[in-house]
């Protein structure tokens, strides 16, 4: 279980939903659940980093979540480079 916050640019794919509680043991299952619930997000999620309780991870699909985890999807930035260099209109 985790509370997931979506950036405003993604809410066009969620019918305006910007916060949702997802029952998922890890980040991977959380992402799959999001994509299943909101199919329009499927192509967007791999461009996002994940902030879990304040710490931002770029590649952490197997990071465990707790019932109180606060998860934010965040555009990827890091490595001295901007990562949002894809086609994304988020």
């Amino acid at each position, binding site marked *: 279980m985790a509370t997931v*916050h979506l*950036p*405003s*640019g993604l809410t066009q794919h969620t019918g305006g939903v910007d916060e949702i509680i997802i029952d998922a043991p890890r980040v991977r299952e959380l992402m799959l659940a999001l994509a299943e619930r909101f199919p329009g997000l499927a192509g967007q999620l*791999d*461009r996002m*980093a994940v*902030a879990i*309780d*304040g*710490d*931002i*991870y*770029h*590649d*952490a699909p197997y990071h465990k979540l707790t019932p109180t985890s*606060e998860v*934010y*999807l*965040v*555009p*990827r*930035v*890091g*490595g*001295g*480079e*901007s*990562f*949002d*260099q*894809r*086609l*994304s*209109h*988020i």
Partner: protein
Amino acid sequence: MKDFKYVGTRPIRHDGLDKVTGRANYGADFALPGMLYGAVLRSPHAHARIVSIDTKAAEAMPGVKAVITGDDIPENFAKVAIGGEGTFDMHDMGDNALAHGKALYNGHAVAAVAAVSLEAAQEAAVRIEVVYEPLEPVLSIDRALAADAPILHENLVEGQGPTNVAARMELKRGDLDAGFAEADVVIEREFRTPMAHQGYIEPHACVARYGEDGRVLVWCTTQGPFLVRDACAAILGLDGSKIKVISSEIGGGFGGKIPVYLEPLAIALSRKANRPVKMVMTRDEVFRATGPTSGTKVVMKLGAKRDGTLVAAHASMWYEAGAYRGSPFGAGAMCCLAAYKIPNFFIEAYDVVVNKPKVAAYRAPGSPASTFATESLVDEIARTLGLDPIDLRLKNAVAEGDNAPYGPAYGPIGLKQVLEAARNHPHWTAPLAPNQGRGIACGFWFNAGLSSSATVTLDGDGSAAVVTGNPDIGGTRVAQALMVAEELGIPVDRVRPIVADTDSVGFTDVTGGSRVCYATGMAVIAAARDVCDQLRARAAKIWDIDPASVEWEDGRAVPPDGADGRGPLTVAELAAKIGHTGGPIVGRASVNAPMAGPGFGAHICDLEVDVETGRSIVVRYTAIQDAGKAVHPDFVEGQMQGGASQGIGMALNEEYIYNASGVMENAGFLDYRMPVASDLPMIDTVIVEVPNPLHPYGVRGVGETPIVPPLAAVANAMRDATGIRFTELPLSPPRVLEGLSARTTEDRDAWRPSTYQAV
């Protein structure tokens, strides 16, 4: 905070002597037997269709061994993930290395030659006959967005139709209209910054050898040897496991030595000529064909209550990507309000392609331009409300638990401590002379994490080597040696830090994102602790006791109480016995670290303006920053001074100047005016240390934050000195003189010297 023995001291860097005596080997210093020299033919046009390329005359020139065009680098439409660095567009990276069908900026590589001498290669390059069909160049954001604008890429965004806008993002919080309705003062302005180059002293350079067995050696100056390996493999369709990249010493990068430019060409030429090929850019090529940072347009509106509480912000920003998508527009959007608690905001950002070189990362990419807007408006609100600019910032400053504009709550951060340090610094209250002004501004950068590997080996004499994969740009070798010294309890000069090639160390992401001391440092500390664990086991073997009962304290294995009078064993004593206790000891570790936790800084700038000429000079400058923990304070201070210097350059003079045809007119250091030592005062520094809980020592990364505040700190000082709010950079003498000349009598009367002025 933990007590340290070595961390926090200032030993001489291990690579220092070689660097100050000229012995260090940089990108252009490498040579191989039988080596050829490469030269690149570049487009004279900013935007042109390539109708044909005839290489026959060049190939017939004496000494010419190979000529390549875009046909030799197959267009690759795959989007290939390169480890840890996210997904890169291999089509764009390959097309930028050598054009396919269209030249997209003045300086775009069109063909390349390898010959027995550089002169022969250059002479042959100009014999290549290229027929161009010139097209109208798109040289500004405004032109790129116009309805009748020429389109650079016919299918830039699938399903979007013709457009020069590659991407858009937005961030929002609260109710914008209600927020502005609450405001007593609302100020809106349009800000612009031009393209500016990283300006590293060492040009791009490499040597590549394509062997008969298909194995490739690349020696080059780069921020990321693993990225060079993987990018070259993807662009050229090679097996990455057969490419070995050796990074040279690096004479500056600042993000600009993350992309590949020459390396794929040198490999392709070597493959064709069956000889090693060396390529070195001229300064002209560096300016025209390697990544600057974006030119930008930011329209921002900020609202505050009478007491200075910021209540609403609205920002629209457009970032020039250059010829291919991928500007730091997202980071610009995420950074611009990161310092302040603003309950209502809407930010939109756009990635716009133009006929200029593809931008590359440049120190906190995206943040300086958007923060220039924010910090200028914050200064203006403080002036309008008659509030002290530090008080206003402190009133609105974010702290632990506040949410960043991009979502998550901040952990421990040091912005308020930084601002308090600024207020307490004698600079803030020092008097100013006539025609001088003072400005202050804040800055933010995320600080990256990503992947790093390290090994620590212990020798029989008790010395150690630490091996990592990050080229040392900012003194990271000595920082890593300090970490090993701290863990093992041996002097730092007994630790040899080594930057290894891609075959000799585990995968490591680029030197960038202010991540090396943090993320690679985490791997180094873990590898050193692995050595300590093994030493504890060796001591237990000597004592014939349970390893779990042995403690590691202050560089010694300590037996449990009552262990038959056995004394502790030092690293040197244990190392002397490693042959008898189980053989060599190698510690190893790898990490995939989360982002480090944000770094905040504040800069104070005193500017003196010559009202006759418009020339201004920085007469005093102080940079204050939260470093988390300064492992080697000299290099933290050096980063703060270097970032401030580059930001001052962007504020005062640096800009890409193009003629109407899109040809850059100032592609050299005489005309592209970067500040040199004699242009600047000694930049004072104050290191604030609010430990980052993600790092064993509290490190949070320092390299990028200090380039963010100077743009507005300088502009705010200019406002203080002249009464003029400049919103377009740089504040070069012609622009300042124009501003001074346009002042009306009313303007001059309305302006009052700041309280700092001694007059």
